[in-house]
């Protein structure tokens, strides 16, 4: 039972991070019909920005601010930095290609992904960077918490999961309750019609990238709180995020959240109960099956393409 609890906790923590990335993918795909390959690398940049903020504020060994403020600033810094990066990517790499054949922005996205990952490797080396949160405040983030059975649930896990869910709720409200969100939904439904209705498409797209990239940035910081980050993690994380988005149904926000959590749980349970060796293989195969037989995912709607 303890194993199950621990694995569930692992799955929940990983899954909420995947959900944040999947949300970004879904939003951008919905509006631009483009799979943003560079999204995983935006996530990586977020984790590095968080590291930078931490170092500026004294590092884990000697923080100059109370812990909660430090963490908040790191996440905010990651979100803002990645939002700016996302806007820049859209403006310079995707906007000129908006009317080009579909293959063009995809390849441009590949180029951006490579550029980001290797630029960071150039600047910061290929080694891993550990936030050192473990030692922060005498390790209190890990020693405090509560117990379920024999399993200790550390404070940091609670913070991570709750923050991720809070962000998702904010996003949900943003998309459903505000005018900007409505414009986003309209654009993703039919771009030409939305333009004819007087919606400024460029603004909507920029807004989408801001939101999506900010989520990725937040996810990056939260990810790096638990696990060391490096310049090369973007690729694999991007794949996982995409898997989550497709499983949940690309274009659907609750779908992305569900897909992320499902992926997190799947990874945790497969690795924990069955085999660590083939867990990647199982997940990728499941994804391919989904794409072949249920491309709309679990919560998406089957799209009909008009010709």
């Amino acid at each position, binding site marked *: 039972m303890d*194993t199950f609890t*621990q*694995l569930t906790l*692992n799955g929940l*923590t*990983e899954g909420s991070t995947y959900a944040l990335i999947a949300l970004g993918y879904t939003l951008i795909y919905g509006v631009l019909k483009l799979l943003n390959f560079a999204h995983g690398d935006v996530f990586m940049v977020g984790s590095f920005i968080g590291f930078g903020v931490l170092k500026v504020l004294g590092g884990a060994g000697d923080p100059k601010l109370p812990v909660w403020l430090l963490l908040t600033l790191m996440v905010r810094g990651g979100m803002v930095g990645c939002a700016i990066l996302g806007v820049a990517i859209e403006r310079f790499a995707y906007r000129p290609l908006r009317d080009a054949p579909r293959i063009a922005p995809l390849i441009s996205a590949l180029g951006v992904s490579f550029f980001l990952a290797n630029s960071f490797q150039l600047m910061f*080396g*290929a*080694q*891993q*960077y*550990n936030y050192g949160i*473990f030692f922060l405040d005498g390790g209190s983030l*890990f020693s405090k918490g509560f117990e379920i059975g*024999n*399993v*200790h649930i*550390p404070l940091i896990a609670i913070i991570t999961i709750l923050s991720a869910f809070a962000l998702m709720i904010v996003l949900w409200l943003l998309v459903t309750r505000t005018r900007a969100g409505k414009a986003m939904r309209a654009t993703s439904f039919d771009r030409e019609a939305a333009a004819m209705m007087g919606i400024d498409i460029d603004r909507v797209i920029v807004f989408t990238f801001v939101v999506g990239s900010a989520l990725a940035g937040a996810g990056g910081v939260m990810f790096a709180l*638990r*696990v*060391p*980050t*490096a310049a*090369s*993690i973007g690729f*694999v994380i991007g794949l996982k995020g995409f898997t989550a988005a497709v499983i949940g149904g690309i274009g659907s926000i609750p779908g992305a959240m569900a897909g992320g959590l499902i992926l997190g749980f799947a*990874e*945790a349970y497969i*690795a*924990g109960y069955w*085999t*660590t*060796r083939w867990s*990647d293989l199982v997940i990728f195969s499941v994804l391919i099956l989904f794409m072949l037989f249920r491309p709309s995912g679990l919560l998406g709607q089957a799209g009909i393409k008009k010709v």
Partner: protein
Amino acid sequence: MRKTKSFPLLAAVVAATALAATVSAAPAGAKSTKAAAGISCSKTLDIGMLAPLTGAAGFLGQEQLSWAKYAVKTLPSTMGLKVKLVPGDLPVEKGQADAQAVAQKFISDKSMVAVVGGSTSGSVVSTSTALTQAGLVQVSPSATRTTLTKGDNQQATNAFFRVVPADDFQGSTDAAYMVNTLHVKNVVIFDFQEPYSLGLGGEVEKDLKAAGVTTSHQSVANTVTDFSSFVTKVPSAADIVFFPTQSPGTAEAFAEQLVQQGKQAKVFGGDGSNGLGEFKAPGSYISSFAPSITGFAADKAIIAGWQKDNKGKPVGSFGPAAYGAVQVILAAVKAACTKGGGTIAKRSLVIGQMRKVHIDKGWILGGKFSWSKTNTRDPSVQKFYILQIQSNGSYKLMN
């Protein structure tokens, strides 16, 4: 139409010439490198270095490069030689093809007499055949894969030498320490689906099983950074997790997650987890093929000199081995020069001299150096050192 007609005609003529030329040239191509006259010892000689200078293992290669550079700066003048170090970058992410291309570059360098490297066992496998055929001796400061010099199916050639002991010693030393000193009952062994950890982990598992210790095995893909689920699988009764990663940061993260999930097992890393300042979880162990030379009084001057050139950098254990490799190479080259009366007639003569090298004093890794009697391409002193991480992050020698 008329303008373009000449183009194909011209091309056809070119092709015909090419064909004729190649037929006559093909056999001649290979001989030319042998025809080079002997290498004069009064001119600047080149020593190549094959190490990962960039990429994930870049820290290792850069450390080795800094020590090799220092050796080349200070030692040759005392022996009456002029030497230049030519680095060749072999990132571990790149494959064989890259390694072989760089090896070809070294082979075409007429003044090159020896190679320090490859630093990684994989690069040795890729380059040894070509380099040996070209007569270049290779001395590695860190390639520890057992099958390079031992066994039936040796992966390196007989011109490959190393100044550090092989992994079979590492595995058996680690296992012996665990059984005899730590009295372990239950050990989990990890591998990362790549040759280093598979070899080392396999060796340790074998010895532990023979000693009656309960072992379990987990295999993890090289790209995984989040070990939380694997940590969950570690039984609470486990005393030690043998974690032969090549990245100290990963070892640190894993150790932290063990504590997080309340497991009592301690992490035991191989020489790849050796990273002062990065792997600092108290109570963990690492094994290293070289002791920290700061403990040797005879090396004080060398350390001081190196630190002057490399301000602020710590003295690791990978670097001094590279210095030692250069020492050995220079001894062999000097012997070849003396024997040849100031000229090295063929590069391969250095290989012959290498077999006879022995250093009586001044060897950076402990005074004296000679080749092992049983396997003449491994060092005679084959000892692995176990270090434990103290609560302040420093490493303490345990054996």
